[in-house]
């Protein structure tokens, strides 16, 4: 599903709730069924070996098999009503093989020895058929087998074990608080995902993983009927690689900001945020319309994450750089010659961007990727210079790497795995600096919080971003809320205007829960960490219009 469709859903205003196709994968089950254990590891190993042997006997030179059970629970409410509770389970096997130097893939929901052997044979037949029109054989980076291993998202409260009633009560409280503080309308949603994945390959890996993700969110709407005006504010939560404990709202994980604003690190207080949102949405109704021009921007991590995602994460996906996404998502300005030069100034010297799939509580973090590569951390931009990309096994050789970066992912057992974005984060500053310290140094600026409208070209040069909250900064102080704000810039120019970073105490992650890529489109979830960061002299436009 495209992120756009999802955003329409999350800010849903239709009376009847129809879930867009693709949001829910698999069949609907009871909440209790989600708690039943899947097949045990020994049985999955037997099945996996059947696939590996069947493919080898048909002529495959490499095979990997993914036995996946994917669980989802989504809850949607508006004001005082529950609109929908969806519990879904999807179980099956995806088999990828290499034959004659060409990939073949097949998947089946018939998880039996016969079903799996047939599926493996189909995958080999497809590889052999496709090899006739392939001109260059695929080269896989070597990967030593890791033996029989397992990995689990470290969590203290499995969200699927929390009764649905408790979750609905939470959302009703959230809606109630928003309405109490002046919201005309409010929608709130909870998304829980659990991927139980078993991976085996002819390299000698047997990997069992149990991965959890959570995303609480809402949209509050204020209305001035007399003036015919409305404004909204979305939650400033982040989707996380955590269990239900993310909703504990721990005081120790709150970062106090200016004007009573609160940033949430690894624990979210949904009711507090809804209360603030209701008040802020009313304030937005009378906020001053921005005067266009150049401003120094102070960007909160809950906003900057999406800018990192679009202007650094996507352009450094190696498959885009090579042209595999040309017909849909596009290619990239960050071409191989720029990287090879070793001198391409992506950003100012302060810009250090790291890729990882290991940072605790994040969406990208797992033990191993979907081709059995152990996850790690590596630099993409060092002291402002482009130094690397995001690659998988069949791309590593192209950039002279001896091993994959571990960025392979498929959104379901029946989807073929391909290169997806790891967590891509901006390292915080090394000098002690709070948000207030940063604002003090700004003469004419705007402090921006939250994910708003976003758009970027197909090679990731020109972008335009909005936000949820905009505060005008004059002579080192916040002087009031602004409206109709969007900034337009060019990726290289923007990152070279990076002038100051807050330190690690302000570091937080932002996340994208349904990032779309590929044809047919697949979703993935990814986090982006940063501390509040200042960018000088960025072009701000006024988006107010009359119709």
């Amino acid at each position, binding site marked *: 599903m*495209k992120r756009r469709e999802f955003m329409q859903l999350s800010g849903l*205003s*239709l*009376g*009847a709730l*129809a879930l867009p196709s693709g949001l829910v994968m698999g*069949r*609907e089950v*009871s909440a209790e069924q989600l708690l039943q254990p899947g097949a045990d590891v020994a049985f999955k190993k037997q099945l996996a070996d059947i696939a590996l042997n069947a493919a080898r006997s048909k002529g495959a030179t490499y095979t990997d098999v993914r036995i996946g059970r994917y669980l989802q629970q989504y809850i949607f409410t508006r004001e005082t*009503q529950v609109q*929908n509770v969806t519990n879904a389970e999807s179980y099956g096997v995806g088999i990828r093989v290499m034959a004659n130097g060409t990939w073949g*893939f097949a998947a089946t929901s018939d998880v039996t020895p016969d079903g799996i052997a047939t599926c493996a044979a189909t995958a080999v037949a497809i590889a052999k058929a*496709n090899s006739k*029109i*392939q001109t*260059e054989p695929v080269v896989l980076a070597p990967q030593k087998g890791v033996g029989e291993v397992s990995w689990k998202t470290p969590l203290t409260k499995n969200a699927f074990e929390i009764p649905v009633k408790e979750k609905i009560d939470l959302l009703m409280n959230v809606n109630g608080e928003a309405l109490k503080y002046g919201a*005309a*309308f409010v929608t709130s949603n909870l998304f829980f995902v659990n991927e139980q994945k078993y991976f085996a390959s002819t390299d000698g890996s047997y990997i069992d993983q149990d991965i959890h993700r959570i995303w609480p969110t809402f949209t509050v*709407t204020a*209305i*001035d*009927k*007399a*003036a*015919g*005006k*409305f404004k*909204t504010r979305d939650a400033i939560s982040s989707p996380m690689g955590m269990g239900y404990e993310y909703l504990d709202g721990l005081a120790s994980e709150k970062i106090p900001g200016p004007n009573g604003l609160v940033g949430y690190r690894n624990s979210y207080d949904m009711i507090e945020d809804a209360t603030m949102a209701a008040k802020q949405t009313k304030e937005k109704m009378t906020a001053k319309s921005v005067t266009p021009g150049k401003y120094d921007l102070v960007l909160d991590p809950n906003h900057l994450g999406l800018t990192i995602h679009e202007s650094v994460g996507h352009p450094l996906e190696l498959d885009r750089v*090579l*042209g*595999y*996404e*040309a*017909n*849909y998502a*596009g290619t990239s*300005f960050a071409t191989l010659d720029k990287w090879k030069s070793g001198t391409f100034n992506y950003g100012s010297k302060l810009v250090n961007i790291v890729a990882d799939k290991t940072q605790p509580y994040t969406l990208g973090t797992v033990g191993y990727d979907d081709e059995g590569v152990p996850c790690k951390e590596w630099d993409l931009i060092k002291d402002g210079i482009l130094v690397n990309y995001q690659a998988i096994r069949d791309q590593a050789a192209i950039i002279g790497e001896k091993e994959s970066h571990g960025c392979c992912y498929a959104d379901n057992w*029946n989807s*073929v795995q391909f290169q997806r974005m790891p967590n891509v984060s901006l390292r915080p500053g090394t000098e002690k600096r709070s948000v207030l310290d940063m604002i003090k140094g700004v003469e004419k600026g705007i402090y921006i919080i939250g994910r708003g*409208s*976003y*758009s970027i*070209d*197909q*090679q*990731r*040069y*020109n972008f*335009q971003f909005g936000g949820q909250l905009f505060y005008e900064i004059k002579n080192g102080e916040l002087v009031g809320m602004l409206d109709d704000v*969007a900034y*337009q810039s*060019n990726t290289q120019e923007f990152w070279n205007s990076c002038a100051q970073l807050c330190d690690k105490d302000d570091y937080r992650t932002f996340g994208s829960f349904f990032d779309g890529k590929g044809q*047919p489109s697949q979703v993935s979830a990814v986090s982006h960490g940063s501390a509040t960061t200042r960018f000088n002299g960025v*072009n701000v*436009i006024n*988006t*107010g*219009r*009359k*119709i």
Partner: protein
Amino acid sequence: MAIILTETEAKTLLQKVLSYSKADECEVNLLGEQRGNIRYARNEVSTSGGQINQNLTVQSAFGKKVGVASIDEFDDESLQKVVRRSEELAMLAPENPEYMGVLEPQTYGKSNGFFESTANVTPAKRADAVAQSLSQTREKNLVGAGFLEDSRGYNAMMNSKGLFAYYPSTNVNFSLTVRTPDGKGSGYVIRGFSDFKKLNTQTATQIAVQKCLGSAEARALEPGKYTVILEPTAASVLLENIFFSLDARSADEGRSFLSKPGGKTKLGEKIVDERVTIYSDPANPELPASPWSGDGRAQEKTNWIEKGVVKNLAYSRFWAKKKGVKATPFPNNLIMAGGTSSMEAMIKSTKRGILVTKLWYIRSVDPQTLLLTGLTRDGTFFIEDGVIKYPVKNFRFNESPIIMLNNLEELGIPERTVSTESDRNYLIPPMKIREFTFTSLSDAV
């Protein structure tokens, strides 16, 4: 059991499901779908595959207590289980004040959206269609990346008051981006049809090739307000934001571009140029669509905007009853009436303007005014004194489709096209618009 059920098979299955029901009211929706695709990039096939999907959803109601459950297995035991599950959920659910009960049997018009030519597409036929495209890009030393996806399927429903509806349909979408090896030129084409026989990948590829070659070495123009000619696919990604916002309830609640000061809506008001008429018609032979909506209401030919005036809004049955109006459902297709000008004539009559092939990454900036942003892509050309003079660098725009349709200069002949944002098919004319707002330049090709 086959994935695509005939009308008789679907009816038999639905009757069986309803026979298990113990609720006051029961409604069952059923669908089956098979998709096949082939994807290529760098002039090589990269992936190919298929997807099968079937689903049965049961809604049971005891009074106003409603429960919904769905399943993708159709054996007797699974069917009984899904009915019981929906009934259990209904018993547990609080009363839904907006539940309207199931509909009496309805009368539906005829619409033929199912074509054997599409239903019978084989992997070999798909590969052949793509080969006709690849051979051109390879021959011309250009780089092709494309995607062809065909689907066949059906929807059916039945309820405890005896309503039964069935609609089979097919579709094929083909899109292609052709680039020069040095990355300085890029051209695009997209086609969508119900009937595979209408798809000619060879002629479509010629268009993308021509745009690719013609777009290399683009010159920079200053951003600002320009007369533009939007090809149908470029227009569709803007116009569909109007289509998605036709909900009466949002307008009545004050949170739509169709809301107006004082708590009223713009229903009955002229909001765009009087040459603009947008309607839905399930029986249109060029863009056939299901003659019934998901809750069983009949889809009739409906004018949404007629000669610039908002004529109808879409209602849920609950909201229509509350407002005492006819419950017009959300449309299943959308058509914009056009003029008689050919694309060539529209270019010829342009003194100074920009021809736009495709718009990309469209996002809402302000739902109050339907202000959208996005960029031109894969074929943007400067027109002077009636001829295409040279390619220009891509622009970012900030524009509302409502403002745009007030600045209408000319409409061309409508054609079936595909939105590159939503993948939906529409029937839309190319259009000439004055004072379209480009706000910055992009280096992207």
